[in-house]
C-alpha cells in the first residue's frame, strides 16, 4: 500500500487527479477511450474478416494495418498508466482490474500470433498457419477483448462490485 500511496503522490499523478484543466484527467480518459476504440475496433474488424474469408492470400494484405493497432495500443498503455498512477490505491485493490489486465495481455498475445499467421508470403517459408488455427486465434482475440472491455468498464463502479 505504501508503494500505491507513493505513486499517487507523484507530481504527475497529482496533476492528473486534482487539476481542473480539461487536459488532465478528462483528456487522458478520452485518449484511453480513443486508443481502446481503435485498438480493439481494428482488431475486431480484422478478426471478422478472417472468420468470414476463405482465400488466405487475401488476408495477407491485412498485415499493414497492424502498425496502427500497435500505435493505438501505445496510446492506451501510456494514458492508462497515467490514469492508474492517479488512482492507484483505488484501482490496484480491485480484482476486476487484474482480470482486465490479464485479458488485455492474453488478447495481445493472440493478436501477435494472428499477425504471425497472416504474415507476408516472404515470411512463410513453408511454415504456414492453417485457416482453422487462424480462425481459432480470431475467436480467442474476440472473446479476450470482450472480457477485457467489460471488466474495464466495471472498474469505474467499485461500489457496485462490492455490493453497495
Amino acid at each position: 500500500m505504501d508503494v500505491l500511496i507513493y505513486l499517487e503522490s507523484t507530481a504527475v499523478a497529482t496533476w492528473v487527479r486534482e487539476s481542473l484543466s480539461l487536459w488532465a484527467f478528462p483528456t487522458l480518459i478520452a485518449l484511453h477511450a480513443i486508443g481502446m476504440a481503435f485498438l480493439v475496433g481494428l482488431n475486431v474488424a480484422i478478426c471478422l474478416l478472417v472468420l468470414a474469408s476463405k482465400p488466405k492470400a487475401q488476408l495477407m494484405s491485412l498485415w499493414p494495418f497492424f502498425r496502427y493497432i500497435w500505435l493505438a495500443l501505445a496510446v492506451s498503455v501510456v494514458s492508462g498508466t497515467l490514469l492508474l498512477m492517479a488512482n492507484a490505491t483505488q484501482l490496484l485493490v480491485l480484482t476486476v482490474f487484474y482480470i482486465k489486465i490479464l485479458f488485455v495481455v492474453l488478447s495481445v498475445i493472440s493478436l501477435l500470433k494472428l499477425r504471425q499467421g497472416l504474415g507476408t508470403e516472404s515470411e512463410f517459408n513453408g511454415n504456414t498457419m492453417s485457416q482453422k488455427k487462424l480462425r481459432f486465434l480470431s475467436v480467442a482475440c474476440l472473446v479476450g477483448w470482450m472480457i477485457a472491455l467489460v471488466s474495464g468498464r466495471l472498474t469505474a463502479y467499485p461500489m457496485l462490485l462490492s455490493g453497495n
Partner: protein
Amino acid sequence: MGLILLVGSVGLIDLRVLGIGRQLPLSLLYRLVPWAIFGFTLCFVTGTVFILGDPFKTPADTLTKTVFQIKILFVVLALINALLFEYYSDFRELSRADNFVGEIPFSAKITAGLSLFIWMSVVYLGRMLPYGDSFYFIFYW
C-alpha cells in the same frame, strides 16, 4: 461494444481508402459495412437508454448540454459523410469489382479522412460529457 464494431469497421475501411494495405481488395472490406451499421444501431439504442434511464439526471439535463449537442452534430456529420462516401464516391462500384486493388479516387480519400477525424471527435466528446459545459477550462493548464 457498439462503438468497437462501428469504429473498427469504419476505421479499417477508411485506412484502406487512404492507401494503407493497398493489396487488400475493397470487396472484402465491404463485408464490414453491415457490422458498422449494427454497431451504430447498438450505440444509438444504448445511448437512448442511458439518457432516458439515468437515475441522477433528467433527459433534459443531458440534452441541453453543449458538449452533448456538439457530439450529436458530429454524429450527424459522420452519417452525412458516410452517405456521400457510399453514393457519391466510387467506393460502391469499386468494391463490387472482384479483387480491385488499384488507386482510390481523391474525393473518396477526403471523405475517408474526414470520417476518421469525425468519429475520433465523437468518441472524445462522448468522454467529455461528465465534465459538462466547462470548456473554458480548455485554456487552463
